[in-house]
């Protein structure tokens, strides 16, 4: 049955063929195959029918509409491009404000560390208190033992 084997067209090739994107030898070979192969020929006709029917809607613009649109775009094009200017101006202003704030701050205080130092100090105090409590308890215990003795 080796001689009976038929290679059918790939849909991708049929698609490229439809859009005129298959050229030279490949195009000729496919055209020959479509002449000879009923199955591929049917698939080709189906594909052709559906693609021919796929037409997207079109907007018809009248000359007045086009002129109005063109005038609007031209007018906008003439406006100074301020968006970038304002963007850079904003960035510059923010930088200056930040720099001035940092410079005006009293020396020795590093932002962000102040609160953590306070928190650390509070924690150390708590530990000290805890240790003192333990010492007191131990002292009470010793006094109790002494009293018994």
């Amino acid at each position, binding site marked *: 049955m080796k001689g009976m084997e038929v290679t059918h067209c790939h849909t991708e090739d049929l698609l490229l063929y439809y*859009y005129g994107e298959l050229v030279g030898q490949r195009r000729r070979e496919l055209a020959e195959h479509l002449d000879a192969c009923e199955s591929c020929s049917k698939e080709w006709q189906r594909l052709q029918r559906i*693609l021919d029917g796929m037409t997207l809607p079109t907007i018809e613009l009248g000359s007045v509409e086009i002129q109005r649109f063109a005038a609007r*775009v031209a007018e906008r*094009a003439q406006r100074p491009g301020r968006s970038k200017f304002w963007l850079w101006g904003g960035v510059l202003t923010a930088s200056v404000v930040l720099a001035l704030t940092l410079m005006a701050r009293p020396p020795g205080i590093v932002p962000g560390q102040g609160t953590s130092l306070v928190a650390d100090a509070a924690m150390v105090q708590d530990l000290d208190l805890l240790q003192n409590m333990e010492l007191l308890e131990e002292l009470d215990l010793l006094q109790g033992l002494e009293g018994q003795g």
Partner: protein
Amino acid sequence: MTPQAATVVVDHAPVQDYPAPSELDDRCEKILLEQLRAGHPGAFEQLVASQASRLINLAYRLVGNRAEAEEIAQEGFLRLHRSLDGFRGDCSIASHLYRIVSRLAIDHLRREKLRRKLFFFRRQEDDVDPLEMAADMGASPRDNLQAKETGQRLLKALDRLSVRQRAVFVLRHQEGLPLKEIAAALKLEVGTVKAHLHRAVRSLRTELKDLQEDRS
């Protein structure tokens, strides 16, 4: 050689006309470009007027909404205007505009898809202005109606494709751009463009199966 092979081979594919990307010829374009660079009053407006219809339609087919299409086309013209000094003329102004608008439309579609995902937003699908689409005066009212319905269904079906599949399909099928041009416009490999086109057509065939059956 088989008898079949000896016969004349019929080329079954329709002749694909690649539409000229511009109504301006080379000489006119050079003059217009010089005028634009020199800041000649009216030159930019003239360019916009000559390309507006084509670009608004391109954007409309890509995004499926007229107001958004006009915004995108307008932004495309403004970008060209801003980059005129850097425009080297490797391609025509019309092709350059085509590329700008295609990319802008793709960016817009991506943002729109993300917005819909984030906010579960669905565009009103029945908000089509019947006056948007002009009737073909040569066709019967029934044909016109059918063509409009098919067009609207196709737009909805395109909405379900990925952004790139949609762009490739519209640029190849409707705008008639060769795959190489599409690859250049979308900054993709030609092989990738072919794959997107194939997947797009496969999905559309599935979506519009009933139309296919009606026609057979």
